[in-house]
């Protein structure tokens, strides 16, 4: 792919070029979509194609899960509307003939955990889903992004999508992360550096030695939150870490096909000299355990920091923004973040519901007691089973936390697991928006180890104090 006569290409260019069926004069391209993930919340899209009398063009490239509305308790879904949505995706899977990983299926889980786990997500593919955290799958070097219901209907009917090519942003992170500093801290620090809308209209490629050193679970945490900087997608170049993860996954290529695939995947990384529209660099060693204090992701600060003082803001709009967030969050200007009491803890979600996340939380909780209630929810049934095989579930329950059934759970509370009005939650999820975990809920985002430490302390605390 590095033809000396041609311009060096980015990973993003290569995937884009391989999928553009045609490009209009205004630059909008019709892209072929290799994988389409749907969930029970995708019902509007199925209703649109049903209304128009259309079918699913490639059911073999369509994969369904139930995640947003499934309860974290065992047994049938008590809520009739939620049960209806799950029955709806089951009916659509039967009608259109695609594979559904629904309740009771040993593969069930959050769509962004299941795709990689089952080998549905592969390097070099285009992958879309009616969910903004589809950027997660970019950890494999796949171009993956979230779309709305009308676009889901378009992909169901045509297996294609019209897209204008976004710009390319390279985020380079070199150096080594410190002890107890995780991929979550890294992405929070990146968003704090570039802003909550800093990557709007861009596809982000994460590169540098700190990124190379991340495991696949860590890369997924990183790419997952690309959307929180406004990014259209996040990408990490595939390498041996990627191939080792993919090999042997149920839906991944096998035998000679795998060898051919790896040869193709090795040509994907950005060429030397490839040009990005923008570049940002960070020093990994400078990143501390990080938490958000407000209702936008750019309020991420080192845990050693303080709630800002609106009076110190540079202009009136900033003053107003800070004051409104402090009021909603029930905080005091200049208060140390370390020590802010929390009412509960949530460990899970498509950001931090994988096995390494649960191990990191368990390492802090082992032999300790939580002083506030908390819920730990694995991202999928395979993660749940792996955690139980390692005895992690016992670590959580012995600490006094609840071990829930896999799904989205308290990340958005669509299944009824909500944070009560005015309650403060230390959460490993991805959004701290007003009301995100339930009306009036107050969310502080942090890593699994930091959330576990908060459970023990009953307050936001620096996990480095709990170092085993």
């Amino acid at each position, binding site marked *: 792919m590095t033809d000396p006569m041609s311009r060096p290409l980015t990973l993003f260019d290569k995937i884009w070029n391989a999928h553009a069926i045609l490009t209009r004069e205004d*630059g909008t391209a019709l892209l072929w979509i290799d994988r389409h993930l749907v969930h029970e919340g995708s019902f509007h899209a199925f209703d649109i194609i049903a209304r128009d009398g259309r079918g699913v063009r490639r059911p073999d490239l369509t994969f369904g899960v139930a995640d947003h509305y499934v309860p974290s308790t065992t047994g049938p879904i008590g809520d009739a509307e939620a049960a209806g*949505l799950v029955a709806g995706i089951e009916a659509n899977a039967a009608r259109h003939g695609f594979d559904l990983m629904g309740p009771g299926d040993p593969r069930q889980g959050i769509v962004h955990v299941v795709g990689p786990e089952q080998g549905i997500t592969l390097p070099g593919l285009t992958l879309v889903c009616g969910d903004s955290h589809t950027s997660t799958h970019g950890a494999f070097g796949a171009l993956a992004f*979230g*779309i*709305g*219901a009308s676009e889901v*209907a378009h992909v169901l009917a045509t297996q294609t999508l*019209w897209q204008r090519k976004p710009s390319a942003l390279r985020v380079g992170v070199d150096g080594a992360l410190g002890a107890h500093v995780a991929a979550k801290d890294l992405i929070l620090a990146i968003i704090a550096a570039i802003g909550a809308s800093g990557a709007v209209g861009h596809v982000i490629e994460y590169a540098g030695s700190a990124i190379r050193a991340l495991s696949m679970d860590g890369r997924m945490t990183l790419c997952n939150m690309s959307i929180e900087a406004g990014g259209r997608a996040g990408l990490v170049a595939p390498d041996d870490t990627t191939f080792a993860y993919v090999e042997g996954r149920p*839906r991944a*290529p096998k035998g000679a096909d795998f060898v051919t695939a790896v040869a193709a995947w090795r040509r994907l990384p950005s060429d030397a000299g490839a040009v990005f529209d923008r570049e940002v660099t960070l020093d990994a060693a400078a990143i501390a355990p990080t938490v958000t204090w407000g209702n936008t992701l750019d309020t991420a600060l080192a845990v050693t920091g303080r709630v800002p003082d609106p009076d110190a803001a540079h202009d009136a709009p900033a003053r107003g923004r800070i004051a409104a967030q402090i009021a909603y969050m029930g905080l005091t200007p200049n208060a140390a973040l370390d020590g802010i009491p929390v009412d509960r803890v949530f460990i899970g979600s498509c950001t931090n519901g994988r096995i390494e996340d649960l191990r990191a939380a368990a390492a802090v909780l082992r032999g300790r007691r939580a002083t506030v209630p908390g819920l730990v929810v694995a991202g999928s049934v395979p993660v749940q089973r792996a955690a139980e095989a390692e005895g992690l579930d016992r670590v959580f329950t012995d600490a006094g936390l609840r071990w829930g059934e896999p799904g989205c759970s308290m990340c958005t509370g669509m299944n009824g697991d909500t944070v009560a009005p005015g309650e403060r939650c230390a959460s490993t999820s991805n959004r701290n928006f007003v009301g995100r975990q339930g009306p009036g809920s107050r969310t502080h985002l942090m890593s699994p180890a930091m959330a576990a430490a908060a459970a023990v302390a009953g307050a936001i605390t620096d996990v480095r104090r709990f170092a085993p």
Partner: protein
Amino acid sequence: MTPFTALRAPAAVLDRANIDTDQIIPARFLRKPRGPGYNQFLFHDVRAAESGFPLGPSDNPAILIAGANFGCGSSREGAVYALADAGVRCVIAPSFGDIFAANAAKNGLLTIVLTPAEIGALIEAVRQGAELSVDLPREHVRPDNGTAIRFAIDAFRKTCLVEGLDDIGLTLAHAGEIAAFEARDRAARAWAAPGSPPTLNSRS
């Protein structure tokens, strides 16, 4: 889809950055079937918390002027349904969440990106009682008695909006090219076909 051509209307001003789609429509309403009526969910919890919020479930100005990164966050198209059902036809902001902007175009809701200075001038005019004229074919917006401000929009998105086109129908006009790509690609990237589903033991 209702075609969008030109519009003269009063504007509501919501001059705050990072209005996310969770605020525009809280998650618990997303389970509701489509049909008119998403307007009642529009900014449901924000309206409950703030008296004097500039938008309500009905009788809204057709134009909304908002802060940067409007519609960031969740991909929920319900945010667009709620605005559209509540009578909003056009949102003007310094930037939008990419997914929100795409969803808006599919539902006849025009999103216009202007600079903060241009938006400041529009807000000033609106505060003095001006209505705004939005002309999509000519790509400009003008306050009463003011000068026209040009905006840019993708040609394809504009055509779909102006003509109220269903883009699945438009795409299927390229069925031959899609099928040819599919056949070529299947041969070139055999590895990209998903392996067969695993044999499953049901969950204990």
